[in-house]
């Protein structure tokens, strides 16, 4: 029996990123209809193919039903009560960072993402997205020298329309699911990455998503294309202020890897999770999917999900190319009244494809944490292999953990292996560490990071350290 009061004390660490930036914004009226979509498209000066893409998606969305199969419970979302476009007001055209509103730069400074020339992070190029628009992208010239394109997706629509038209919606079609259709209709910004043939991206690329306003949704869209024999490591971070209302975040991420290309996509998601009573917090409904189109291509997802009131997210891989590889490494931590339903889909289509799934779920407080995964071997996936490992850790006696593995095989000459475990931090373990001078909270966080080590090892170095700290912070006071 773990001391209940201690447990309650531990999780009271306030959310560090809960501030609001007071900035003049341009918002459109609430609600969603064709005119709103046309307005968004017009504001962004988009070509006709994109407006058509949006309108088609909207038509599909109207006919779709919000999915209810996930192990999640939440108040119905009123889609007419959301603002679909919100942007900080700034000068028409910005040619350099000096012209960006200092308040915005300050905001990202406070979040630990300095953007200015003097302070910017070394070795990581950052695309900073504030509400509906991208504010700035660093290291653009350096990247351009290598032929790497890294910019906001709005800019890509203007400058690289051919690539957008060729690839947008090819991995996650608008009709894929309810939230993907909604995103396809109203997405406002996001990041675009193009790595040309044979290029190893000289630095990590990173997008930082910040929701600032309380009544607008964030619908970003990310598209990454890795040409033959290229490789890139991409990081994504997210935070939002504390509001007592729920904010909808419905993103779509599409990755495409051609022959021998590799994409590593890492996320540390720390959206505001709501308070101890479950009031407020982000509803995070995200569709992330990668297509291993080329032979021997590789897509690796790693995610550390600590925030959001609701997380609904299944980063997946379509393994088409022969000998292509898909990976999913996930840590999902829920506390208080958070709910997470997350996992992956590994769809083996080509022969000799390989996938690995390592999922670590940690539930504390009254939270609910589910792993949901699909491994499918198609008829042509001869000699393909999957290995899945899903471990759950429970902290306290009010939290719950579920594992829903779905396995479908149409190919007898393939292997699927699934391991699962559930553990609880025991009083004996805590006492052992404490009796060696390690205080209670540190003991818990040591055990939690030990539990997550297989996944943390997959994260880029700075990210792994950040993830470790973040988990410790989130758990402070949650154990007793």
């Amino acid at each position, binding site marked *: 029996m773990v001391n209940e009061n201690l447990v309650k004390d531990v999780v009271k660490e306030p959310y560090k990123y809960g501030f609001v930036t007071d900035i003049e914004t341009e918002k459109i009226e609430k609600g969603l209809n064709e005119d709103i979509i046309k307005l968004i498209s017009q504001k962004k000066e988009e070509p006709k193919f994109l407006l058509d893409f949006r309108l088609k998606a909207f038509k599909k969305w109207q006919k779709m039903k919000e999915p209810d199969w996930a192990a999640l419970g939440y108040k119905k979302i009123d889609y007419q009560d959301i603002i679909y476009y919100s942007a900080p007001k700034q000068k028409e055209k910005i040619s350099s960072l000096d012209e960006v509103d200092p308040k915005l730069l300050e905001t990202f400074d406070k979040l630990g993402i300095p953007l200015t020339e003097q302070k910017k992070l070394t070795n990581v190029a950052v695309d900073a997205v504030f509400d509906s628009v991208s504010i700035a992208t660093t290291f653009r010239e350096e990247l351009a020298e290598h032929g790497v394109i890294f910019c906001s997706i709005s800019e890509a629509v203007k400058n690289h329309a051919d690539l957008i038209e060729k690839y947008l919606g090819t991995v996650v079609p608008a009709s894929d699911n309810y939230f993907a259709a909604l995103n396809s209709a109203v997405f406002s910004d996001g990041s675009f990455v193009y790595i040309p043939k044979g290029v190893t991206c000289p630095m990590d690329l990173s997008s930082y998503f910040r929701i600032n306003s309380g009544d607008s949704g964030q619908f970003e869209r990310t598209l990454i294309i890795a040409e033959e024999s290229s490789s890139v490591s991409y990081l994504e971070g997210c935070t939002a202020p504390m509001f007592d209302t729920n904010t909808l975040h419905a993103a779509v991420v599409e990755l495409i890897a051609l022959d021998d290309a590799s994409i590593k996509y890492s996320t540390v998601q720390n959206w505001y999770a709501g308070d101890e009573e479950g009031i407020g917090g982000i509803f995070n409904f995200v569709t992330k999917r990668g297509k291993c189109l080329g032979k021997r291509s590789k897509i690796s997802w790693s995610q550390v999900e600590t925030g959001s009131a609701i997380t609904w997210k299944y980063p997946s891989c379509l393994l088409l190319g022969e000998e292509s590889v898909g990976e999913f490494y996930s840590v999902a931590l829920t506390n208080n009244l958070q709910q997470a339903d997350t996992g992956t889909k590994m769809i083996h289509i080509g022969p000799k494809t390989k996938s690995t799934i390592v999922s670590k779920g940690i539930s504390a407080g009254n939270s609910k944490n589910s792993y949901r995964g699909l491994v499918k071997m198609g008829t042509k996936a001869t000699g393909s292999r999957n290995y899945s490992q899903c471990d759950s850790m429970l902290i306290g006696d009010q939290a719950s953990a579920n594992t829903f593995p779905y396995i479908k095989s149409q190919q007898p000459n393939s292997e699927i292996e699934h391991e699962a475990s559930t553990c609880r931090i025991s009083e004996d*373990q805590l*006492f*052992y560490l404490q*009796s*060696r*001078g*390690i205080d*209670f909270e540190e003991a818990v966080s040591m055990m939690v990071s030990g539990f*997550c080590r297989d996944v943390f090892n997959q994260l880029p170095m700075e990210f792994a350290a950040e993830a470790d700290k973040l988990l410790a912070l989130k758990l402070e006071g949650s154990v007793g």
Partner: protein
Amino acid sequence: MQSKMKESDPILEVENLSASTDNLPILKGVSLTVYPGEIHAIMGRNGCGKSTLSKIIAGHPSYNITNGDIKFLGENINSLEPEERSQSGIFLGFQYPIEIPGVSNLEFLRVSTNARRKFLNKEELDTFDFEELVKEKLDIVKMDHAFLSRSVNQGFSGGEKKRNEILQMALLEPKIAILDETDSGLDIDALRIVASGIKKISNAQTGIILITHYQRLLDEIKPNYVHVMSDGQIIKTGESDLALELEEKGYEWTDNFIKET
């Protein structure tokens, strides 16, 4: 010699200690005083309260002290957290060392050592300096460096776990070490390694309490005092020959003491 020791202040004083778990009384008035340089052995049947006594001194949260005091270096520690007791110099060697999956032994030892060093106002050690220190200490228990990169106690054999306990004792340099059946499950060679380790670590300033069933550990480490526990009480205290007598006559012999009292 004993009277000379007692000129200094005691390290540990357990005074008329009673304790229970889930309202079940386990200790029923235990008194025990340990002076610097002393080695005490506590013997007794399974379930007599030996292990409970050691856990309570270390601060295990499952037990409530219902009466009496525990004093360490003259200060009452009844309400200190386990980590505070450890940092101030109380060490419990576990009968069954706990496995902590995923946590590297090296990192665990370093964090633990630094917690104690911080208390002593000594500089905390970074990974590099700690490696140097731990290498030295590994020799004391004849452990291989490879143990450090494994998870804490995970997959260790019984003997390896006990040696890891003594390694921790060597790193923490406690004022008092309570070793709960450190000898159980050890073969003769491992027992010698552990015993010689304990002897190397202890000195005229430290106190040791050995909880054991067997004479063979006491052959290696000769105690100043032997206490026999039964039903939550110390029913007899003697010098090292008491252990020999106990070995010869068995615990049934001690049952008579209870009848007498």
